[in-house]
């Protein structure tokens, strides 16, 4: 089975809840393993949160495109935004060995995403960040 999904959302975290419902309506008939669905949910949330929180230098409303393509073997999640240039693949891994008091709050989203998906590709094109997340089934 294969299929594709695409939706434009505003750069506002409140968009996440409805987006996840739409994506699950698309994913459910594909009957993917729960682990792959979890990886998709998590990578989408972590990367989208980064874009919404840190991607823009103004307070204007921007559009982010969220697309998924599944060819029966590989799922590709693409996020396209017009924020400032940001390559999440250059982010530094947090020190996960630290104990509670020394642990800075946050910084684990990118690390989790990189660990749970098969591949990530980033490119800057026509003033847009294009992040592709690859999950193999």
């Amino acid at each position, binding site marked *: 089975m294969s299929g594709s999904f695409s939706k434009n959302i505003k750069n506002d975290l409140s968009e996440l*809840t409805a987006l996840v419902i739409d994506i699950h309506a698309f994913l459910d008939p594909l009957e993917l393993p729960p682990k792959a669905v979890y990886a998709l949910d998590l990578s989408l949330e972590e990367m989208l949160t980064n874009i919404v929180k840190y991607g823009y230098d103004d307070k204007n409303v921007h559009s982010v495109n969220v697309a998924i393509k599944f060819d029966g073997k590989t799922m590709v999640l693409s996020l396209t935004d017009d924020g400032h240039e940001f390559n999440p693949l250059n982010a530094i891994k947090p020190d996960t060995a630290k104990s509670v008091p020394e642990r800075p709050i946050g910084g684990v989203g990118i690390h989790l995403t990189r660990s749970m998906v098969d591949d990530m590709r980033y490119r800057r094109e026509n003033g847009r960040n294009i992040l592709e997340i690859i999950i193999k089934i």
Partner: protein
Amino acid sequence: MVIKQEEKNGILALAIAGRLDAVSSVEADKEFNKVLDAGKDKLLINLGELEYISSAGLRVLLVVAKRMQQKGGKVCLCALAENVKEVFEISGFSSIFKIFEKEADGLSFINS
């Protein structure tokens, strides 16, 4: 996301069900702060019905752990589902929390 509260042998047991994501964690954070502000220092968090947690959800639990440590209280987690457990392991959070498979073991740890 739904959080249920129950007192068990002087321990406050909180069961979180559903999704703890960037949106619902704001609500969860408020709920936990209410509990901690009320002076609760024995806390068991049951994640048996939790289907999904992201870094935003982990952050809420980290704040709980930090506040409990400051006040000399005790907190533990129990009954993590497979995918949720994996997120705890990859992020290193499994070494921050006392985690038990069975709630009964968590209760006896807190009262020990």
